[in-house]
């Protein structure tokens, strides 16, 4: 076998393998989109065959119903707004903390690190009620503050930033220092620009986590003003019988921002970022 043939075989294996595995992973998403295009009675028919993936009488009726039945645009906006604000603050606050834990020496550093790891353990369900009481005491019920502020500082993000910043060669930082940069300047001018992938990763992971959040917004939000998209989708489950058509349509709509965000951040994953060696 020639080098070229070997390469072609390799490529073929690559594409076939990934396609098969990829289909396994993506099939529920496809089913959901397909279901959103079907009339109600068709959705649960023939769940045992491949035909369930293909919408027979495909139409946008479910989507029309979603938009006419509820104020979907508002809810999309609400979710986008509060999630983006959380993310912006999250990336800022947690990367600073993670960097300090990775690269600075200070009293209490180990204690803080242990604290951060320990706090990752506390499950939201256990502290939800005391957190709610706190929101009530602060007068933050039904405000953006209650949706955003408690979630800005995240132990998972701090810890992840720390792990990644640990890998940044100290020589790079020394070079900046020699050039006259203080710690703050070093961080923003040197560290951040080369950490695009880390920021992008935390961005997408936190975006997905908050976008799908249901419990907390349920507790702190009442009425339509600040209703989030997940709350709006859940309203479809309240009627007897449950209409799955609009549910599938609204779930598909809900998936779009996450997918767009994902696509938007592609460039941070493109292979070929120059090595982080020191250039003169």
């Amino acid at each position, binding site marked *: 076998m020639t080098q070229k043939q070997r390469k072609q075989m390799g490529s073929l294996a*690559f594409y076939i393998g*990934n*396609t098969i*595995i*990829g289909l396994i*992973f993506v099939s*529920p*998403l496809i089913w*959901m989109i397909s279901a959103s295009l079907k009339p109600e009675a068709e959705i649960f028919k023939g*769940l*045992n065959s491949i035909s369930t993936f293909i919408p027979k009488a495909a139409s946008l009726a479910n989507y029309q119903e979603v938009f006419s039945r509820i104020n979907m645009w508002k809810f999309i906006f609400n979710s986008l707004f509060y999630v983006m604000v959380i993310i912006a603050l999250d990336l800022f606050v947690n990367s*600073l*903390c993670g960097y300090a*834990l990775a690269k*600075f*020496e200070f*009293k209490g*550093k180990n204690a803080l690190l242990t604290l951060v*790891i*320990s*706090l*990752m*353990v*506390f*499950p939201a*369900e*256990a*502290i939800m009620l*005391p*957190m709610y*009481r*706190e929101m009530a005491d602060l007068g933050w019920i039904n405000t953006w503050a209650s949706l955003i*502020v*408690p979630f800005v*500082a995240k132990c998972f993000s701090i*810890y*992840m930033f720390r792990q*990644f910043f640990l890998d940044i060669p100290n020589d790079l930082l020394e070079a900046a220092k020699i050039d006259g940069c203080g*710690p703050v300047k070093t961080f923003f001018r040197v560290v951040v620009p080369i950490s695009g*992938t*880390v920021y992008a*990763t935390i961005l*997408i*992971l936190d975006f997905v986590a908050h976008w*799908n959040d249901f419990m907390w917004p349920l507790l702190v939000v009442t009425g339509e003003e600040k209703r989030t998209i997940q709350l709006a989708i859940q309203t479809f489950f309240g009627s007897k019988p449950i209409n799955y058509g609009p*549910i599938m349509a609204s*779930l598909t709509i*809900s*998936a779009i921002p*996450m997918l767009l965000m*994902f*696509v938007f951040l592609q460039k*941070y*994953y493109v*292979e*070929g*970022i120059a*090595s*982080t*060696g020191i250039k003169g």
Partner: protein
Amino acid sequence: MQVSVNKKSERKAAYLFIIPAVVLLAAFLIYPALQTVRYAFTDYNIMRPDRIRFCGFNNFIELFQDKDFWIAVKNTFHFTVLVVPFQTVLALALALLISSRRKGVSIFRAAYFSPQVTSMVVVAILWTVLYNSNPNSGLLNALLVKLGMEPSGFLSDPKTAMNSIIFMSAWQGAGYQMMIFLAGLQGIPKDQYEAASIDGAGKIKSFLYVTLPGLKNVISYVIMITVIQAMKLFTQPYVMTKGGPQNATRTLVYYVYEQGFQKRNFGYACAVAAVFFVIVISLSVGMKKIIKA
């Protein structure tokens, strides 16, 4: 002189850098967590916030004698011990599979991440169909029967329910860790790979001697957070099995929710949460020590 000034400004910078996060954590995580611990020593029934009475260690004593609590502990460990290696290896494999410069890689990346983007509602509906115990309705059982094997109860059989959840969770969660591994793979300088191939290393050797060491910090992070997230398992039992059948999928956090919100035994639920906290902390701190060594 230069050195001490730098040290001082470094310390000042350090505190500046950590203040916002620390303040927020203290106010919105530590404070409610302390409240939870406080309630653990009371008989707080959610319906009666006016009748909270201190009851000392009663909740804890009850807890240690509670059969369901210990079953929840067992289930949670069962889940964690199996899912962490399975899901981590799967995620790493996926990341390696697509860390290539071939065209179309981004589509596969999106495909592997898509379970994270797909709503739990849809995931639950479809996996229920997949796992349905009736071979006429369940895809997996239809396959098993075709291959001449016995159908399995999957989620309806106490013996296989947890393993079914493990498999589904790994499928769902692998995309999350895959993204982190991808970020980690980015950070390994390409010249290391070039140097290795010049030295005559094949794919496997370069994986063992360049990739794995380069991913050390990332791997330890991923294992740590996966263990913690696994111990906190709640959503899948809540949506798919409600802790059953026969207690097979009742995890600790699900137990906390059930006791606290459904049965309104909030004081008791906080005690369970406090014990859960101690268990998982010990686990993570222990792991941290091992990883360091």
